[in-house]
């Protein structure tokens, strides 16, 4: 576009120069002028088209809301106005001035003076002509009486006398008879034309004649009526040049008059031509100015458009944008500052982003810690609303705390009456204000039963995040363990203390019987025997009970070693030969190695078998079935009887101490079994057998123990081979 405008400017300049040359007094012809005019007009038309195209482009851009197009239009308007207004004023003034000045060339006085000059010349020439004619008449009179032969001399004399330059005597047909001249250079006279001769035949005739190359001449033709016999008429021609000074002046006047007339003839045309040239000049200049204004305003608005685009990009969150810098003027500086601002914004945003990420990570970390704490955490804000909690807190309280997040903490108490005490206590402490820390233990009833909680509360330091923090632990199990161990300790000591006097009591009773039985009469001795028997039996029972007691309370010290579980089972069963009970053994063929305390495991087996035997009292065809099954990574031992099974109410609490169906027994057997199995990382379950088809009943105890891992197993296999060898 810029180049088009530039080319147009150069072209227009050239054409205008030619046109102004043509309008002036150059040698360019009218046709060329017309051609130039046409070229200029077509150039103007082309410029108009160019401007129309530029405008349409601009409007299209405006409609498409291209940034900067409105500014371009404004700048364009301003530039165009600046070009057009002075242009129009200059145009108006110069057209007016031109017409006025052309008009001022023509003026009645000048014309009259010129015409007067011409007339003056004409009249002075006329008078000279009349004088010449007069001279001619006189000469013709003189000549008329001269004989033909003396005519030349007479003519010469007469001419000399009258001071005429040339005198010629001609026949009627124009034939030269005599010629006299004071011009030595002229050999032949200038003869009159035929028509002139014809005219002269009738009457004397005078004429002013411009002769080419010689200037103005006065020519007089006078008929000479010869008085000799022939009586033939001759014609005398007198030729006299107009005096140089006069002719020059007259010619000059005539030339000026001619020029004046020519000018006045083309007066309107001249005005038209000049006005047209001016109009074209103005038009081309203005159109060029407007199209240049287009280019300029685009150039000016381009950086602003770029800036606006950049601003939009930033508004939409793109901080990567870097604008191209034009030049080093204020706009360029503005663009540079914009770029640096964008960069800073981008950096600030990145910093904020990374900060946010860091804070988030910290929060996530905190949340992870909270989630993996074994303690429940509750945080209240200053208004007493639940702010933060962890999953454990929800689990311990048995309440989905998420539903109460951001709500008043009392609401939980209102909705769950079982927690009301806890909530009240927390709030009470939280509202106390000054007391910074407190600690309490309290019992609550949840869906998991009664739980013991240890609560610790503390006020958070005064800040935006101030509030109240409660941390609580479910110490039910711990309390239980403490209680158990305390109970175990008591039991152990008590058993020891009780066991000590039992042996002397038994020995004393036996001794009393031994010593006194023979000395008493049979009745008394019988009574003594019964009494000592009872003492001994009861002491025995007591011994058993105390032993079991101490067994249960024993500190869990295991003497672990590798052993073959199957072998252990069969060893125990060999020793065990119950009376009246069928024992069915169905153990796995291959050896199964476990890590365990052989004594303890023997006791387990012994207890289980004893229990089964006890359960079969008074049962028809009593039968005990012992099975070992090797599973993937554990071995299962099942001891089943066909007794009456456990009563349902006992079944769920069978492993608790002092839970028994037997008339004598401490109720510690299964509790001890469970303890031992758990110390071996095994599991124990108890089930009642109830087959509807055969109407069989009974109970089965399933014990699972982990098998030793494969590496140790291989080693044991090797050891076995060595043994075999």
């Amino acid at each position, binding site marked *: 576009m810029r180049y088009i405008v530039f080319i147009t400017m150069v072209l227009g300049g050239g054409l205008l120069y030619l046109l102004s040359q043509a309008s002036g*007094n150059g040698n360019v012809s009218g046709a060329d002028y017309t051609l130039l005019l046409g070229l200029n007009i077509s150039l103007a038309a082309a410029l108009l088209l160019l401007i129309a195209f530029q405008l349409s482009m601009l409007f299209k851009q405006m409609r498409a809301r291209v940034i900067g197009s409105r500014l371009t239009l404004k700048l364009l308007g301003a530039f165009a106005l600046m070009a057009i207004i002075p242009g129009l004023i200059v145009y108006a003034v110069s057209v007016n001035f031109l017409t006025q000045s052309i008009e001022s060339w023509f003026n009645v006085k000048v014309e009259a003076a010129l015409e007067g000059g011409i007339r003056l010349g004409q009249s002075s*020439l006329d008078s000279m002509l009349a004088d010449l004619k007069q001279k001619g008449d006189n000469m013709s009179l003189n000549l008329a009486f001269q004989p033909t032969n003396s005519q030349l001399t007479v003519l010469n004399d007469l001419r000399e006398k009258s001071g005429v330059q040339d005198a010629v005597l001609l026949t009627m047909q124009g034939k030269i008879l005599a010629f006299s001249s004071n011009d030595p250079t002229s050999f032949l006279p200038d003869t009159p034309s035929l028509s002139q001769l014809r005219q002269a035949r009738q009457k004397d005739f005078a004429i002013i004649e411009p002769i080419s190359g010689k200037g103005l001449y006065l020519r007089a033709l006078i008929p000479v009526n010869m008085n000799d016999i022939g009586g033939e008429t001759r014609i005398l021609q007198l030729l006299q040049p107009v005096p140089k000074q006069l002719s020059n002046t007259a010619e000059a006047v005539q030339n000026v008059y*001619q020029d004046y007339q*020519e000018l006045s003839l083309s007066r309107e*045309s001249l005005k038209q031509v000049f006005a047209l040239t001016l109009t074209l000049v103005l038009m081309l200049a203005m159109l060029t100015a407007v199209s240049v204004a287009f280019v300029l305003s685009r150039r000016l608005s381009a950086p602003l458009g770029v800036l606006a685009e950049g601003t939009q990009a930033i508004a939409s969150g793109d901080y990567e944008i870097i604008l191209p810098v034009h030049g080093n003027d204020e706009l360029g500086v503005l663009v540079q500052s914009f770029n640096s601002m964008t960069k800073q914004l981008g950096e600030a945003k990145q910093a904020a982003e990374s900060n946010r990420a860091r804070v988030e990570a910290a929060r996530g970390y905190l949340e992870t810690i909270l989630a993996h704490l074994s303690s429940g955490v509750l945080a209240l804000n200053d208004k007493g609303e639940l702010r933060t909690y962890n999953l454990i807190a929800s689990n311990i309280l048995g309440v989905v705390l998420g539903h109460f997040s951001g709500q008043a903490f009392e609401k939980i108490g209102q909705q769950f009456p079982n927690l009301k005490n806890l909530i009240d206590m927390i709030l009470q402490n939280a509202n106390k204000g000054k007391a910074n820390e407190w600690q309490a233990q309290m019992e609550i009833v949840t869906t998991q039963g009664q739980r013991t909680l240890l609560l610790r509360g503390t006020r958070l330091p005064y800040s935006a995040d101030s509030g109240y923090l409660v941390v609580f632990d479910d110490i039910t199990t711990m309390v239980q363990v403490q209680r158990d161990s305390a109970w175990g300790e008591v039991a152990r000591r008590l058993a020891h203390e009780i066991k000590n006097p039992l042996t002397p009591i038994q020995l004393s009773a036996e001794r009393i019987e031994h010593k006194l039985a023979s000395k008493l009469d049979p009745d008394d001795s019988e009574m003594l025997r019964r009494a000592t028997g009872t003492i001994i039996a009861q002491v025995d029972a007591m011994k058993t009970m105390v032993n079991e007691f101490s067994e249960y309370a024993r500190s869990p010290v295991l003497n672990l070693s590798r052993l073959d579980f199957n072998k252990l089972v069969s060893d125990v069963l060999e020793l065990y030969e119950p009376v009246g009970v069928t024992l069915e053994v169905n153990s796995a063929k291959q050896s199964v190695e476990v890590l365990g305390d052989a004594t303890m495991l023997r006791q387990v087996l012994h207890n289980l078998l004893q229990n089964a035997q006890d359960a079969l009292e008074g049962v028809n065809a009593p039968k005990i079935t012992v099975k070992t099954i090797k599973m993937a990574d554990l071995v299962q031992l099942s001891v089943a009887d066909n007794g009456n099974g456990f009563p349902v109410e006992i079944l769920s609490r069978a492993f608790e101490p002092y839970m028994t169906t037997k008339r004598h027994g401490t109720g510690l057997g299964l509790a001890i079994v469970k303890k031992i199995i758990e110390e071996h990382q095994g599991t124990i379950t108890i089930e009642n057998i109830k087959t509807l088809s055969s109407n069989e009943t009974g109970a089965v105890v399933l014990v699972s123990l982990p098998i030793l891992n494969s590496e140790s197993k291989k080693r044991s296999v090797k050891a076995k081979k060595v043994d075999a060898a």
Partner: protein
Amino acid sequence: MMVYFMPYYKSNKFSCLPILLTLFFAFSSFAYAANSSIHIKNAELISLEESYALNADFDISLSPVLEDALNKGVPFSFLVEFQVTSPRRYWFDDEIVTQNQYVTLSYHALSRQYLVIRNNHQQSFPNLQQAKEELSIIKSWPVVDKKLIKKGDAYSAAIKIRLDQTKLPKPVQVEAVGSDDWNMASERYHWTPLFVF
């Protein structure tokens, strides 16, 4: 074009917009009733000793505008163009000879004479009629060398006479542009000359 354009312009000297607009549509000429004309009545080639000469006869009439201009001292130059061609069938005609002659008609105000200048030879006439008579006759203008003419070939001769506007005085040229008054030209007169060998 300008003749059409300018009267409009004169009445609205300072409102140029309509003028500018008119300018682009005013490419058509405005025609005055013109009575300036040149008509070629007759033309022939006559055989001289070494060449053929042209004799021609025109009818020249000047419109009042032109007559007025003449009487104000504007010299009129008429250009007589003569051409002999040999027609060719599939190509442009072969140009054998082209001759031009200027005849100037002017008015001498001081002597009140009409001057006709032909080939640097000046003749003066007291009135326009006589001058026009002299102007409208071409006599024995040797135009074709006999050597150029070959026997048996076909030839065509043409003559045209027109007022040469480029020889007009500068201001008058401006006036003459686009004016029918000043656009004085005869039609092209064609004939087939009979060459005698």
